[in-house]
């Protein structure tokens, strides 16, 4: 077990080091998300009192699209010298390699989301009442996106049309995450929905756990099929 953890750490550290040096994933996601926020700011006929209605939607659309843009870049460094197989041919369980890459994407996306969501809160004047629910939903939602997205961005690494295929494949699976996420975010900024944010957070947690297991198990099988 400790070997697995060490290898997990090695892959994650490698990705962090490359990301720190090139910064291409975080920059790509940050720039894309900031542009998206501007577009939303101008696109909505913003009746300032009603931002509570569409604010949460903007947060989650920005998060989903930026995470997907980041996914496409996540394996570029592996694609260049065939390095994905340099890891898979090592005495390392494929699931460990997958988990490390997914965690890497999760951390980069959370770093980006911190900036972007702060911008949205400012631009759209969202008064966050329940910060715990707000941040919790973002973390759990991003985890779900990282798990599902990383699995398919690894598989589509060499596919010609991966920019189209990745959203086409992952968005239907991630619809529940967006539904739950928007619910909790809306509740946390005071939307008058008679719903229990806790239930939706547990739903997101359940999603992450089940899809965590499914993606880790499927990765090894799919990459070698």
């Amino acid at each position, binding site marked *: 077990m400790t070997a697995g953890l060490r290898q997990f750490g090695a892959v994650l550290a490698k990705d962090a080091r490359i990301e720190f040096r090139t910064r291409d994933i975080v920059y790509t996601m940050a720039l894309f998300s900031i542009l998206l926020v501007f577009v939303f700011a101008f696109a909505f006929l913003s009746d300032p009192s009603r931002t509570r209605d569409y604010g949460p939607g903007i947060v989650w659309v920005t998060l989903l699209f930026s995470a997907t843009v980041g996914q496409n870049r996540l394996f570029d460094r592996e694609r260049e010298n065939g390095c994905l197989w340099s890891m898979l041919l090592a005495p390392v369980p494929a699931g460990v390699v997958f988990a490390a890459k997914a965690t890497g994407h999760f951390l980069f996306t959370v770093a980006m989301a911190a900036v972007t969501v702060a911008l949205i809160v400012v631009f759209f004047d969202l008064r966050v009442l329940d910060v715990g629910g707000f941040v919790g939903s973002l973390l759990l939602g991003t985890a779900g996106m990282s798990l*599902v997205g990383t*699995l*398919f961005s690894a*598989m*589509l690494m*060499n*596919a*010609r*049309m991966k920019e189209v*295929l990745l959203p*086409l*494949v992952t*968005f*239907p*699976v991630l*619809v*529940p995450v967006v*539904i*739950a996420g928007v619910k909790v975010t809306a509740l946390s900024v005071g939307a008058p*929905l*008679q*719903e*229990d944010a806790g*239930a939706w957070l547990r*739903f997101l947690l*359940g*999603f992450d756990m*089940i*899809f965590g297991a*499914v*993606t880790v198990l*499927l990765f090894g*099988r*799919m990459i070698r*099929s």
Partner: protein
Amino acid sequence: MGRGWTRWIGAALAVAALVTMLAALYAIFFVAPLEMTMGIAQKIFYIHVGSAMNMLLAFGVCALAGATFLAVRAPRARAMADAIGVATAEVGVTLGAIVLVTGPLWARKAWGTWWTWEPRLTLSLMVFLLFLAYLALRAFAGSDRFGRGVAAGLSIMGIPAIYFIHFAVERWGGAHPQVVYKGGLTVPGMKLAFWLSVLAVSLVTAALAYQRAVIETQRQAIDALFLELDRREGLP
């Protein structure tokens, strides 16, 4: 599977499907009484829900085929699983088209709008999208074993995905699960029409999927023959 044997099954399924479909249509239009609130438009309901249920069933079979494709090593079993996977996916998309055409027509009469995010209608849309993604993966992610393996992986992941979509969509319109429109199947005549149309659509699905699977198996056989030619090419 010998040629005669497969042709016989294909024909039997097609005939059964046609007969049952005609019986179902008879039951829908001549046995089932008119429903009070919606009148004749309610008759769309039978084929709409029949198709939706069979689309879900097709997705389940596709996921099973995908699991077999990834789990099993024997080439023959994998080829068969692959054929069933693509067959159920294509017929599933066809059923999805039916559901997404009859759905809005039904919604227009039932609720006055072409589209509502009614839980079951939304779930059908998502299953349709998952099938499209499956076929897109088979087409663009590599026509070799790897591309099929990725598509198989998506079909397996589709099962928990559908569960979570169903759960979320049910509660999307407020915490309490919506009272899902039952189509007013109160009268025995209506129940007969409903179950007959579900059976009819199932047989149509089976007939089309069987035919598509046979085509895929034959395509695999032709590939094997080309391979055999290639194998012999080098020998003296």
